[in-house]
């Protein structure tokens, strides 16, 4: 009759041990899939340091917005910033957390990454179906030295709603009045031509199988899979290849200080070194949360990530926010987020 007693003892001991863990509840968040790899890497490092974990469900930006509005999570994450009016109606505030870039990828024999130069209007005409072959004068004009084949252009786009598509179509809308008029910018649009593939991996698969294909993927994906990305002409008229530095330049040159509620799409930013299709992924939290303690933990997590997570971000080909932007974000926390008594939550 000794064994059951031992079991009871160990059960009691186990319950006693688990009590402290119950106090340090995990932070819960849901939303965008694009930043999921870096958020989970940050979360693992943060848990080692603070003992507080992050439960992040990458269900998509639309889902993230719905969940934070339903208050089932402490923060929502979206690749597309919400406009100030929508934020106010829901009592939310937002801040950017990580930056990434979108690159056009092509499949043309003999053309290496960065060889082909494209600009906004040309990419728009290709995706509108107006430029049908690779030796079209519009492409030739930008690439006088390149031997371009007469291969037909096969357009590949994302079939699932995604932040990547939102950035890409925003960029095309800024560069082509016709695109803005006919198609517009959104996470999913009525594509005039081409085939739709699911996820970055789907676009990459079809682009790499189809001669003459052009698609667009996140930079990290293109780099890790050694895809043929193109160079782009940016707003200042400079030709440049995609790189972490080029995305960071776009984030730094953007006018964050004058953007209400950080509503800023980073496409087509000025600056000689700015990659034109850059975007930030945003975090949504309540201005006055029902659970202020949980929200404070979430802010602490992002504060830690902004200050200590740069290396982890660069390792995964994400772009950490410039220090100047981090200062603006934390100033906005002080100004906008209050605890139950109405005094600032972030001190």
């Amino acid at each position, binding site marked *: 009759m000794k064994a059951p007693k031992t079991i009871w003892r160990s059960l009691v001991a186990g319950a006693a041990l688990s009590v402290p863990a119950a106090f340090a509840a995990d932070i819960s968040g849901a939303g965008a899939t694009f930043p999921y790899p870096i958020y989970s890497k940050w979360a693992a490092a943060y848990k080692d340091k603070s003992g507080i974990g992050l439960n992040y469900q990458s269900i998509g930006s*639309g889902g993230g917005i719905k969940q934070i509005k339903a208050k089932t999570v402490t923060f929502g994450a979206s690749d597309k910033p919400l406009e100030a009016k929508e934020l106010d109606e829901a009592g939310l505030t937002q801040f950017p957390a990580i930056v990434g870039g979108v690159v056009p990828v092509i499949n043309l024999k003999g053309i290496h990454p960065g060889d082909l130069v494209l600009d906004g209007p040309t990419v728009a005409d290709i995706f509108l179906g107006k430029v049908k072959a690779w030796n079209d004068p519009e492409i030739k004009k930008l690439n006088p030295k390149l031997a371009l084949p007469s291969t037909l252009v096969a357009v590949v786009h994302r*079939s699932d709603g995604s932040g990547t598509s939102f950035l890409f179509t925003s960029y095309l809308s800024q560069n082509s009045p016709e695109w803005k008029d006919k198609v517009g910018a*959104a*996470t999913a649009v009525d594509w005039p031509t081409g085939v*739709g593939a*699911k996820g970055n991996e*789907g676009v990459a698969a*079809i682009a790499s199988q189809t001669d003459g294909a052009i698609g667009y993927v996140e930079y990290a994906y293109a780099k890790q899979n050694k895809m043929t990305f193109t160079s782009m002409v940016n707003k200042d008229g400079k030709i440049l290849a995609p790189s972490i530095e080029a995305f960071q330049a776009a984030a730094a040159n953007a006018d964050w200080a004058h953007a209400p509620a950080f509503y800023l799409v980073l496409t087509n930013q000025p600056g000689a070194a700015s990659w034109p299709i850059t975007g930030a992924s945003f975090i949504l939290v309540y201005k006055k949360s029902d659970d202020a303690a949980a929200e404070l933990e979430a802010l602490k997590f992002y504060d830690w990530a902004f200050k200590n997570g740069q290396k982890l971000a660069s390792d995964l080909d994400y772009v950490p926010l410039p220090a100047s932007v981090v200062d603006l974000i934390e100033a906005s926390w002080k100004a906008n987020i209050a605890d139950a008594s109405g005094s600032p939550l972030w001190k």
Partner: protein
Amino acid sequence: MNTNAQVAQYASFAEISPAALRRHGAWDAVLRNATRSAALTVLIVLGGVIVALVNGSLPALRHYGLGFLTSTAWNPVTEKFGALPAVYGTVVTSLIAMLIGIPVSLGVAIFITELCPVWLKRPIGTAIELLAGIPSIIYGIWGLFVLAPFLQRDVQPLLISAFAPVPLLSHLFAGPPYGIGVLTAGIILSIMVLPYITSVTRDVFETVPAVLKESAYGLGCTTWEVVRNVVLPYTRVGVIGGIMLGLGRALGETMAVTFVIGNAHKIASSILAPGTTISATIANEFSEAEGDLYTSSLILLGLILFVITFIVLAAARYLLLRLETQAKA
């Protein structure tokens, strides 16, 4: 209601004590209630799904009305939505799947039951069952990375050039060979429905009394004549049931189709062109759908698929009923 006296009387007939009889009665009641509530659960869940679908699709129904069914628009930016391309894609891919799947499935089933040497029966049967066990995402990935490049390189260019001079078929097989598209989705689906149709038809073929078949052979029938005039008439109800099971799977299949159909909200005359289906559209766009009208339109698509599946099942029931009355007459 039995009185105690009656119970005692019955018990004495069967030489069972009244207590045992009461116990049996109680157990029967428990079983009856348990199974009845299991059956009711199904009805409640089904009713809940219908209510949720109708409720969710009300905003889109109010906004677009019946025009939703005939509109070919799908523009999330201007919030103009219509179901026709998705319905068209769903029906056409399932049709292609059935065109390829039914003859092959029946062929396999006939071979296994009539012609196959005994030692080969097991391996083929197991292989077919394994085919049913493969998750649909695997079919999708295989379709995208293996089947699509093969079709693009070796099959589609041939189809395009072969049918180019033929008046009507040139439209059906036109356009650049993307590898993915309506035809590829149909082919993948035909492989996926194969195990369902095959295993049902094989099982019903095996119910044909050996006496019937042997008499036919004795009269000098060929194997084909036996299958055509004895096996198929005897089992047609089961065969149609198997086909409907496969069709149901083809109509609702999501992941594999999403990978290979090209996801374009367009109705093209060519079956090589990209298209979309109802379930592929929902799977692609639901998670990132913003705004009530967009979400509601996707739920309305789901409701339409529900209705299509219901019509197919009802048609199958009706067909079976007619066959049965014919057989009796």
